[in-house]
């Protein structure tokens, strides 16, 4: 899977908002996974189906890394 490009758009305000909620209410979720999902959606290219596939890949990668 292609690496997520972290330079394309300034997501700091979005990431801060999401991270605050994650830390408070979804602490079981991995912060890096959340950020990767968001960065995937910051790129305007790609169809919805392609995005869904990439999200599933990210989740699969993350789940398989964990016991």
């Amino acid at each position, binding site marked *: 899977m292609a690496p997520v490009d972290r330079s394309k758009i300034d997501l700091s*305000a979005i990431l801060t*908002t999401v991270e605050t*909620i994650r830390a408070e209410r979804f602490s079981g979720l991995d912060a890096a996974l959340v950020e990767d*999902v968001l960065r995937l959606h910051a790129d305007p290219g790609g169809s919805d189906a392609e995005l*869904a596939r990439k999200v599933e890949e990210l989740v699969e990668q993350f789940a398989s890394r964990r016991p």
Partner: protein
Amino acid sequence: MMRLRALHLTDFGPFKGTQTVKFPPGEGVTVFYGENMRGKTTLLNAIRFVLFGSIIARSARSASLHNAGNWEQQAAGKYGFSVALDFTHEGRAYALTRSHRPRHGITVPRHDDDYLTETFLSRDGDVLGPQERQVELQRILPEQISRFFLFDGELLQEYEDLLSQDSEMGHRISEAIERILGVPVLTRGRATLAQAKSAAERRAAQAAQGDHRTREYGSQLEGLRQERDTLDHDLERQTHDLEDLRKRKSSLEEALKKKERFSILIEKRDGLNSQIDEIERRMDQRRDDLRKAMEHAWSTLLIKPITAAIGVLSERESALRTSIARVELLRSMHLKSDAECPACLQHVSSEAKRKVEATLAKGSGESLDQQQAELSDVRRRLEAGRKFANAASSEVIQMNWGLVEEAARELFTKRDQRDDLDRQLNEVNEDALRSTKAEYEKSILEISSVTNGIQMTRRKLEEKATATEQLRRRLDRSAGADLEQAQKRWKLLCDLHDLLNEAVGAYRERLRKSVEADASKHFLKLTTEEDYKGLSINANYGLTILHNDGTPIPVRSAGAEHIVALSLIGALQNNAPLKGPILIDSPFGRLDSGHRKNIVRALPTMAEQVALLVYEEELPPALARSELKGKLLAEYKLDRRSARHTELVART
């Protein structure tokens, strides 16, 4: 962020031949001076064309490209044009060229279809393929948010629609605002996760069905998932219908607004017709009264002798009443043996009694009866005389005549006003207007019905979700390894989805606060009114001016709307993940010199790169230089060579 470096125009609008504008590096403002019809709006359209492949007219609608070429060149048989833009973005150099040339074999193109548009984009010298080019351009400056970068100052009043919850334009701008602020990153993420979540749930149900211990639960789970899917689709369709209905209502509202003047005239005309009916009815009544009075008009000739006769009869009536009273008094004294005088209450002596009897003897009983009969007769004649005198009064006739005349005058005036309105309404299709009104009212009812439907579907979805949750808990207790893995992935996706769902609301709230604060800062720099405290924002990003005492200013002038819209655009630039240059055509609208100065001073704070398209009376060069100082990067003049030829000349 995107930064413009140079713009090359070839035969675009009045810009004949190839002409180049260079945008100097550094933060500040480039000013283009041009009188009316020299090509300021065309220059903005050239940038719009090279970036998005289209141009717009002043009305904000798409315009034909066939007419966008240079007219002198077209007259010489040379059709087509091209625009090239050099810019940088995130440290990389781009060259974008878009040309619009007649198709092969067409010597005299007649419409847009006779042309072929070709686009080339290079990044750091490498030409990108069509798909990559499209993605790259969409990433650098999406057309949907171009209204915040390339705009006509005279269209800024559109932002006023953000204050109306039901305005179609307001919704469009609100969507664009959320887009520039990056909300779609979250909403799109939420949609993708919903899709992935559903797929993971399906896989978990399949895994459960594959195990004999959980087969039954798996089937039930899959059944519930399918029902929820159907309900989700219903909800999506209903939401879509609601959106369509709102758009329809909004367009009908706009249509009615455009015809509002005629609606008022029709209402006024209908009101006048009712008044005319009432006056005609009143006039008929007055005429009837007058006719009756006129029947006795001849009697006015007898009014004098009758008045004299009434006088004589009145005197006679008075004399008779006195005489009858006297006789009745004497009689009462005569009848009583120990009579007292009713005047002095003294005993009446025998002598006095005899005198009374003598007096009564003189006037017999018959005389009293005669007097009473005469009194009745006199009274009857008096009444008839008075009645006659009243009926014969010329004043009554004059009064009725006056009332009829007054009603006639009123009727004439009202009819005249009504006819005038009819003339104004001559061209108006009243039936169509009434039908639009009826459709508008129908759309309100339909919106209410669909809204109820949505609430019902949501309730059903909640019920199904609760049932699914209960089933899943039972399944968890007897799950095998495959099912456990599938459930784990599904739960992870659920959490991610829920997180983004909460984040959408939180981010919107954060943005609203931030945009409100920044727009207020810009507004206080731009406004000359000291009594204003700032701006308050609504759910649509519509801004209302606040007085120092905290109360909102409900009605604002065109100038104030302009200032508020510029404040919003400045705030969006501050808060947007995506930044770029601002190019403004006619930014000063109907603003006075104080506001103009404030805007010029504030422009460099709104974006790193700003281009202004103005005429010199609007922004005298001396004022631009004194207010912008080192922030004035370059000045260009749109110099007239002919009605169809303008040269871009750099000022030094």
